[in-house]
């Protein structure tokens, strides 16, 4: 049934198609990919063929011409696949590394980077965080210096999703020694350039089907055409990018929480103790009701904020609130779900322990809970 004013019949149809794809082509392989620490490149290509990597991009860049909510559907449904890693990798491709190219890039950059990313032929990564700088973007040390028609980049990035195998990185650098926001610029850097290397693949608590790496830039030379947007405007561009990153992160958290809730509900209805399904014990039943309420509350907040976002209202207060609330909710729901599973919940044989591990990240990635609160406190005039 259409969910006004956010989703139409067409959206529902898309959701069914994605759900089917997830059930057939993702779910059966999740355990294997989690084990391997990555999923095959062929998934990007397949999703590109199906149009899933460009749902909300216009047709002229190879997208499906859908609205923002079609991307929300993808994030929600992918997060019900049984892991958070793969959906995160895809979200980096669709909603984190590529939006700045679409928004600030040249036609040539659309051709060289955006289109192949939407086709799934090139894997994209976004390079912001450094060993010494996370949310403090202004303090980053990766330096790009101009030499004639080229830029020479030196520095290290870390915690980079898709980092071990990205074909290009949307990279945040410092292009001036003047402190402050004006010295930041973005570049699109192909990873086959001389001087680029992957430091190490990072081992993580959760999100294990997504590869995470440290990237090293040692005198990497890129042509001036690879500067993304205007020199010195990178800070504002990346602040804009982060809004979309947080928005899609919230949508993912909703999907993940629904997945955990459904698992817990199903378990509570089938697991018997003291002669009855444990879900018939009042505290468990009420706990499930509270979990579902939290999900729905955050869903409404997320959709209402996404609605603004899709109408061009980039509202950092609402977006930060949404990201904070959804991420906290996602982990809380997974934690309560694990509790309902009892001892089984602690066993890798049951899927809930992974949901619990994976749901921990959204409270850190895209800006920690605490960073969200700092942003919000300024926005509400404290």
């Amino acid at each position: 049934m259409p969910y006004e004013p956010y989703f139409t019949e067409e959206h529902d149809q898309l959701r069914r198609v994605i759900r089917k794809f997830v059930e057939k082509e993702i779910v059966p392989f999740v355990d294997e990919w989690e084990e391997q620490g990555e999923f095959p490149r062929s998934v990007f290509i397949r999703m590109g063929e199906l149009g899933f990597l460009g749902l909300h991009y216009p047709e002229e860049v190879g997208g499906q011409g859908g609205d923002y909510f079609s991307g929300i559907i993808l994030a929600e449904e992918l997060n019900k696949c049984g892991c958070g890693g793969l959906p995160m990798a895809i979200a980096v491709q669709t909603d984190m590394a590529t939006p700045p190219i679409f928004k600030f890039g040249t036609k040539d950059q659309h051709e060289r980077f955006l289109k192949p990313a939407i086709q799934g032929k090139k894997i994209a990564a976004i390079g912001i965080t450094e060993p010494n700088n996370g949310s403090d973007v202004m303090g980053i040390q990766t330096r790009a210096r101009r030499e004639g028609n080229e830029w020479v980049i030196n520095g290290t990035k870390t915690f980079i999703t898709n980092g071990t195998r990205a074909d290009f990185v949307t990279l945040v650098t410092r292009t001036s020694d003047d402190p402050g926001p004006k010295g930041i610029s973005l570049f699109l850097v192909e990873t086959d350039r001389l001087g680029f290397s992957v430091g190490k693949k990072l081992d993580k608590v959760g999100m294990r089907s997504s590869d995470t790496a440290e990237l090293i830039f040692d005198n990497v030379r890129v042509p001036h055409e690879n500067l993304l947007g205007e020199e010195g405007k990178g800070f504002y561009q990346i602040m804009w990018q982060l809004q979309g990153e947080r928005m899609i992160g919230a949508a993912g958290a909703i999907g993940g929480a629904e997945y955990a809730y459904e698992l817990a509900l199903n378990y509570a209805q089938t697991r018997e103790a003291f002669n009855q399904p444990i879900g018939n014990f009042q505290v468990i039943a009420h706990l499930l009701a509270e979990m579902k309420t939290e999900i729905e509350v955050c869903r409404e907040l997320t959709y209402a904020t996404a609605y603004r976002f899709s109408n061009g209202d980039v509202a950092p207060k609402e977006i930060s609130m949404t990201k904070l609330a959804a991420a906290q909710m996602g982990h809380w729901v997974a934690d309560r779900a694990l509790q309902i599973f009892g001892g089984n919940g602690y066993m890798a044989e049951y899927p809930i322990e992974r949901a619990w591990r994976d749901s921990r990240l959204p409270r850190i990635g895209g800006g920690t809970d605490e960073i969200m609160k700092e942003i919000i406190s300024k926005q509400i005039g404290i």
Partner: protein
Amino acid sequence: MSHWIFSEEHQMFRKAVRSFLEKEVEPNIELWEKEGETPRSLYKRMGELGFLGIKFPEEYGGSGLDLIMEAVFTEELSRSGSGGVGAAIGAHTTIAMTNIWRYGNHEQKLKYLVPGIKGEAISALAVTEPGGGSDVANIKTTAKKDGDYYVLNGQKTFITNGVNADYVIVAAKTREKPTHRNISLFIVETNSEGYSVGKKLKKLGWRSSDTGELFFENVRVPKKNLIGTENEGFRYIMQNFQYERMTLALGCIGAAEKALELAIKYSKERIQFKKPLSEFQVLRHKMVDMAVDIEKARNITYRALYLYNSGKDCVTEATMAKVYASEMLNRVTDQAVQIHGGNGYMMEYSIQRLWRDARIQTIGGGTTQIMNEILTKQLGILSRPNKLQTQ
């Protein structure tokens, strides 16, 4: 930019209501709290301004506007800082009169809705009894037919506006069985013989609203005062619960906004260790948590409101809104007191009143536990009949 459910007109109305409340309600709250009631003059004044008949048809003196407009009023009324005034006015317009509007006939509307909308008559809804609150099916008050009358006997309690009401909508059993099809609603004028108000109940909060205990001793109510169809009362009450829950949730949002506003204001003025409290990160983050909590409650409530206003089923959403918003208000007001420190515990500061007023919200209109019981059914959580119960 505000939420999409509100139009330009809604926003203009919000401004008008807010400015009225700032001038004519806020300065008097303390006095009314001491007096233990909202004065009749306020009903009258709100009647003149059209605030009591927002959603009611123009032919009865209402404004014929949508429920979202009334929601704006409810939110703002609570935001003015008095749960008691909100309760008194809300019990009159959204809880009591709504029954006449929805299920009453033309004559009843002329006789009761018209003066109610003008603020000349105060109304109340009486369902709860000493022996039962949310367990509506088990009320004990009876109404027995006797010629052109029904004779009412029984007792009601916790009735908002119970002391001052000119007429009360009373739920009574019109037959023994079947359960859920044996309750009817009556309009009872409070000057009827056999009707009496027991003691005015003293409360922890909501003090500017009067709460009464009502006694019915062979009260003869003319047949024409039966609302809708006989024995359909349970259904009417249940239907109205959706709107009541939403209204309560809206009230919680308004009150929480006020509490946060007071906390922020205080934190900026209060200097400790040579800087305002607002510059201490833990307090700043605490206030952010409060703000986020409010936004969460707001969005689920607006969803329920939108569905209800479009005539769609919203039992789940309205119940979630009520349970979430009321728990939220308790968290927010408690933290607001905390930010006020010792001053927060003093009657001189109004935050203590918001905190006291908040406490009823997880109880009134169905407790949090009752809401969760409803949700377990709505969400299909109970898989099969409880074996222990069926044994």
